[in-house]
C-alpha cells in the first residue's frame, strides 16, 4: 500500500540511494558548465567509473571491505578524471565542439566497458562484489520514519548530503569559485587578471570527471554491487537536466537530483503497486520530468554566457 509507513521508509530510503550518484555527478557537472564547458560525457565517465569500481573491488576480494571500497572509489575517480582530460583536451585546447566530443566519449565508454566486461567476467556474467559500507548513526536512526530514511544509509548518501553544500560554498564564496564562474561568464576578465582561462576550465572539467567517476562507483557499489553493460542507462543525461533545473547551483541541482531519484525509486515500486497505469510510464517518469524541468526552468534562469564556446584570446 502506498503511504503506509513501511512503504514511505522503503521509498524514501531508495530515493536517497538512487539520488546520491546523480548528486555527485551533478556537482561536477555544475563546475564544468560554470567554467564554460558542456560535459555530456558525464554519462560515459559514470559508466567507466562504475566498471572500474566493480573491477577493482572484484580483484580485491578478501581485502578489508573499507580498504577495498576506498581503493575502488579512488580508481573510479581517476578513471573518470582521465576520460575527462580527453574531453578537456578536445574541447578546450583544440576547440572541438563540446557536444560531439562528449557524444564520442559516451560511445567509447559504452564500447570499452562492454568489451572489457566480457574479458574480466567472461561467460560467468555479473558477480557480486564488496560494496560501499553502510553506516547507521546510533540514536538518530531510531527516529520513526525519518530515522531509517536519513540515518541508516550507504556512506555515499552521506557524502551526497554534505558535498553540495561544500561545492556551493567554494563556487560562490571563494576566489577559486569566482575564477570558475568568470571563466564561464566573462573569460576575457579572467585573462586580463593574468589567470589562465584554459587552466581554469581544465581544472573544472577534470573535477567533473572525478566526480562522475565517483558517481559511477556509487551507482555500482552503493546498491547492486555488480556491473552490467550500460548500467548508467541515461543517468548521466538526467544529471544534465538537473543542472539546468538547479540553475547551475550545486545545492539546487542536488534537490533536482533528489526529485529524479524519487521518481526512479517510485518507478521501481510502481510495478508491484498496480496503480492502473502500465509500468513503462513510470519508467519514463524521470526522463519526462527532466524535459519538463528544463522547459520550465528556462526564462527564470540564465546559462553561463560562454557555455559551449571555446575561448580564443584573439577573438575577444
Amino acid at each position: 500500500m502506498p503511504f503506509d509507513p513501511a512503504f514511505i521508509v522503503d521509498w524514501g530510503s531508495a530515493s536517497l540511494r538512487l539520488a546520491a550518484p546523480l548528486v555527485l555527478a551533478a556537482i561536477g557537472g555544475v563546475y564544468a558548465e560554470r567554467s564554460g564547458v558542456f560535459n555530456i560525457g558525464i554519462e560515459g565517465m559514470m559508466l567507466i567509473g562504475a566498471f572500474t569500481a566493480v573491477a577493482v573491488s572484484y580483484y580485491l576480494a578478501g581485502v578489508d571491505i573499507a580498504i577495498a571500497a576506498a581503493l575502488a572509489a579512488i580508481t573510479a575517480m581517476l578513471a573518470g578524471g582521465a576520460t575527462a582530460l580527453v574531453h578537456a583536451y578536445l574541447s578546450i585546447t583544440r576547440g572541438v565542439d563540446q557536444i560531439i566530443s562528449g557524444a564520442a566519449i559516451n560511445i567509447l565508454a559504452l564500447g570499452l566497458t562492454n568489451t572489457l566486461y566480457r574479458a574480466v567476467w567472461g561467460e560467468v556474467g555479473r558477480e557480486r562484489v564488496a560494496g560501499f559500507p553502510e553506516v547507521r548513526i546510533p540514536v538518530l536512526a531510531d527516529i520513526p520514519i525519518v530515522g531509517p530514511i536519513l540515518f541508516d544509509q550507504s556512506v555515499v548518501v552521506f557524502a551526497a548530503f554534505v558535498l553540495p553544500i561544500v561545492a556551493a560554498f567554494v563556487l560562490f564564496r571563494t576566489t577559486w569559485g569566482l575564477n570558475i564562474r568568470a571563466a564561464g561568464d566573462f573569460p576575457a576578465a579572467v585573462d586580463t587578471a593574468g589567470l589562465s582561462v584554459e587552466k581554469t576550465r581544465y581544472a573544472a572539467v577534470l573535477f567533473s570527471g572525478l566526480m562522475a567517476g565517483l558517481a559511477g562507483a556509487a551507482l555500482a557499489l552503493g546498491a547492486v554491487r555488480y556491473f552490467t553493460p550500460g548500467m548508467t542507462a541515461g543517468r548521466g543525461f538526467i544529471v544534465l537536466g538537473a543542472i539546468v533545473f538547479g540553475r547551475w547551483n550545486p545545492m539546487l541541482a542536488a534537490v533536482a537530483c533528489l526529485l529524479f531519484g524519487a521518481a526512479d525509486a517510485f518507478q521501481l515500486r510502481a510495478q508491484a503497486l498496480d496503480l492502473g497505469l502500465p509500468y513503462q510510464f513510470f519508467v519514463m517518469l524521470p526522463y519526462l520530468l527532466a524535459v519538463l524541468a528544463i522547459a520550465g526552468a528556462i526564462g527564470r534562469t540564465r546559462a553561463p554566457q560562454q557555455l559551449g564556446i571555446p575561448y580564443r584570446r584573439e577573438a575577444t
Partner: protein
Amino acid sequence: MRAPILVPIRAAVRPIAYRAIVPLVSIAAALAVSAVIIVIVGASPLEAYGAMLRGAVGGIGSLATTAVRATPLLLTGLAVALSFRAGIFNIGAEGQLYAGAALSAAVALLPLDLPAIVHVPLTLAAGFLGGALWALVPGWLRAYRGVSEVVTTLMLNFVGIQLVAYLVDPIDGPMGERGASYAQSQVIAESAELPILIRGTSLHAGLLIGLGLAVGLFVLIKYTPLGFRLRMLGGNPVAARFAGLSEKREILVVMLLSGGIAGLAGAAEVMGLRHRLYDRFSPGYGYDGIAVALLAGSNPLAVILSATFFGGLRAGANAMQQSTGIETSVVLIIQALTILFVILGPLRGWARARAARSSESVEASASAV
C-alpha cells in the same frame, strides 16, 4: 602528358580527394588502436578483422547484410547531418526512430485491405510523422523558448524506447501480441511490406529510400533557398539574423525534417526487415547516426559512404563474434575512436586548406561541424 581535357577533371577530383583523407586516416587510426584493445582482450586482431571483413563483404550474402545494416544508419545519419548543417544538435534520432517505427507499425497493422501502392506510402508517411512529432517538442522549445535541444532530445530517446515497450507489451500493450515470449506486435499487413531487392537475402527497398533521400537532401542543402538559409543558420547565425531570417521557423522546420527522417529509419526497419514492431529493436542506430554524420562531414552524399562503412562494421561484428568470441561492442570502440580522430585530426585543417585551394569555390559551410 597533360592532356588539357584532364585538367578540369583533376580540378574536380582533387578537393574531394583531400576531403577523403581525414576520414580514411581516422578510420585507419581507429582500427589500429582498437587492435590493441583486441589484443588486451586476448584475441588476434588479424583474425578478428579478417572475420569482420568476410562478414561484411565476403560474398553476396555478406554484402546484402552490410546493406541491410547500413540502411537505418543511412537514414539516421542523414537526419543528424541535416540538423548539424543548420547548427542544431539533434541527438534524439534514437527516440525519433522508435516513434516513427511505432506510428508506422500502427498503420501497417491496420487490416485496411489496401493495395501496396497505397499502403506502403501511407505507412512511410506515418513513420515520418511519428519521428517529426517526437522532434516537435524539443524543436519548439529550442526555436521559441531558447531551450537547448541537446538534453531534451536525449531525454526523449528514453521515453520513446519505453513507449514502444508499452505498446508491444504482451500483457497489456495495445499492439502487443498476447502470450508472445518476446514483447512484439503482430506481423504487419503484407501490403505494407517493403519489397525485397535481391531474392534470398533480406535486402529491402528501405535502402533505395535512403539513397534517394541522400540525393534529395544534397540538392536541398546546396541548391534551394531553404538550404541556403539553413546553411547560413549553421555557419553564421548572426549574419542570418541580420539578413532578416526568421531563425525560429527555420529551426523548427529543420528539427521536424530531421526527426521525420529518423522516423523513416524506424519505419523502414519495421516494413522492410522485421515486419513487426519489437521492444528495443534498435541497437542504437540513432546514436550511430551521429558518428555516420560526423565521418561524412555532414555531407548527405558522403553519408552514403560512411553509413556503408559503419553498416559493414555492424555486419562484420557478428561474424567476428562467432569466430573469435570478441564482443560486438568492439564496433562501438572503433566508431567512437573514428569520431575522435576525425574531430581531433591535426590533418583536418591542412586537408581543408588544400581542398579549398584546389577548388575555386570554397564552400563555407564545409566547416559547419
